[in-house]
Each structure stands twice: as C-alpha cells, then as structure tokens.
C-alpha cells in the first residue's frame, strides 16, 4: 500500500464528514495520523470547526447580523396588506 501524502490525507479526513471512507482509505488515514503530528492537529481542528458550526445552526445572531432598513419594513408591510 502506497503511503499517502498530507494533501491526500487531509482531503480524506474532510470527506469522511460527508461519506463513509472505504476500509483501505480508513487504514491509510489511521496509519498516516499515527506518524504525522500536523495532520493529527488538522483532524482535531476540523472537529472543532464542526462544534463551532453546531452552535451556529439555524438562525444565529453570532454570525448573522444585518438590519432590515426602515424603508424596507414599510414596503414589506404595504405589500403584505395588499396581497
């Protein structure tokens, strides 16, 4: 089995969040992470990103701040009452 490069491993680590890796892929990742500190850090960082995004789920003022202008509010209400 050919050793995979960090660029390939990081892509597999990311993809494992969307699909199930094959047995060979999982083994390749596991072996690589065993000996590669930076990639192990990377994997932990992606886990943290996932936790961060869990907090943001749905409608969250942490990341979504914008003000609906007064003019727009008036227009919207006008359009609603005429619909």
């Amino acid at each position, binding site marked *: 089995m050919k050793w995979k490069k960090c660029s390939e491993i990081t*892509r597999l680590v990311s993809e494992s969040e969307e699909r199930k890796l094959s047995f060979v892929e999982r083994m390749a990742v596991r072996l690589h992470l065993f000996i590669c500190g*930076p990639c192990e850090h990377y994997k932990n960082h*992606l886990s943290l990103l996932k936790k961060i995004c869990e907090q943001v*789920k749905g409608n969250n003022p942490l*990341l*979504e*701040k914008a003000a*609906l202008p007064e003019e727009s509010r008036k*227009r919207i209400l006008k359009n*609603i009452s005429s619909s």
Partner: protein
Amino acid sequence: MAEIMNLADTAAAAAPAAELPEPKPKTDPVSWLEDHGDALYAYALLRVNEPAVAEDLVQETLITALKSVDNFKGESTERTWLTGILKHKVLDQLRKKGREQPLGDDALLDDQSAGAWFDESGHWIHKPGYWQEPDRAMENSQFWETMKNCVDKLPEKLRLLYMLREFDGLETDEIIETLGISSRNNLWVMLSRARMNLRGCLELNWFGT
C-alpha cells in the same frame, strides 16, 4: 384578522376556568417584523447575497406565514417556525439561480490558492499546530467576530456551499441539486478547500501558533 380574534374570544368564553386555552401565537405581521425582521433578513442575505432579493424572501415568508398560521401550533418558537419557512424559500431561490447559473465548479477546482497549503510533493507548507483550549474560544464574543470574518473571507461560492452544509445541515445530494454542482466529488473537494481555508484563517487570526 378580526375573524381570528373572535374565535379566540369565543373559545375563552366556552372553556372552563381551570383550562384556559394556550394564548394564540401573534398573527400580526407588524409584530413578526419587529421581533424577527432583522434576524430573518440576515439569514436570507447571508445566503443570497443580494439585499433586494433577501427583502423579497422575507416578505414572501411573512405572507406564507399568515396563510398557514393555523398550522403553527407552538411546538417550536415563532422564530424557528418563520426561519423554517424562509429556509425553504431561500433554497428555492438558490435552486432557481443554480439552474440559470450553475456553480461552474471547474473554475473553483482549478483555483490556484489550493497550492498555498501544500508543496508539490504534497507536504505541508505551514504545518498546523496545537490549539490551546479550543473549546474556550467559543465563549468569547471576539472569537465569533473572527469566525465571521473568516467565513466572509471565503470565496463566495465556497462560502455558500460551506454554509449550506454546516449551518443548514444539507446533505451532499441536496447541495448538488440546489447549486447545480456537477458531481459529488467536486462538492467534496470544494468543501475540503473551504475547511482548509477556514481553519487556516482561524489559526492565523485566533489560535495563532
């Protein structure tokens, strides 16, 4: 409106004193706009990127909400309910745009910035380091400012597919179908790139090893 109020009065009069009915959710778009207008607008704007379109989506959401208010039995909050309606409309809008202007993933996949992370032999150029107490960061409001800036820094198309996946929880096939991406593999490569960029930005601007 008047009809709904009369029903509520009648119901209250008919119920025994010990069992007052649950207060009906406000069916007043003015209140909805006041309580949720900014949040709904922000949600839409983040995903469609055009203020006028975002406003229309908020308007359509309130109209739909008015029509289906009887379906809202208070199982979730008003905010959650309205956001749910808005989410469908945002996806419809994105889908429409995806048909007219498919994402054009080839350009994104050729993106030269991919080479910023690894050298020709596939090794790290800047090695990720250890992040100190990462969970604590989330308790800090300045961290969220940094996070927001890092998300904003993502190339527009990568940002959109990242948000649909991570904030809205859409699955692979839903994202592909909505945005007009040519293959699952292309989506996965782009998500990987988005995560790579975001992680790098956070390390540079917050966790700074």
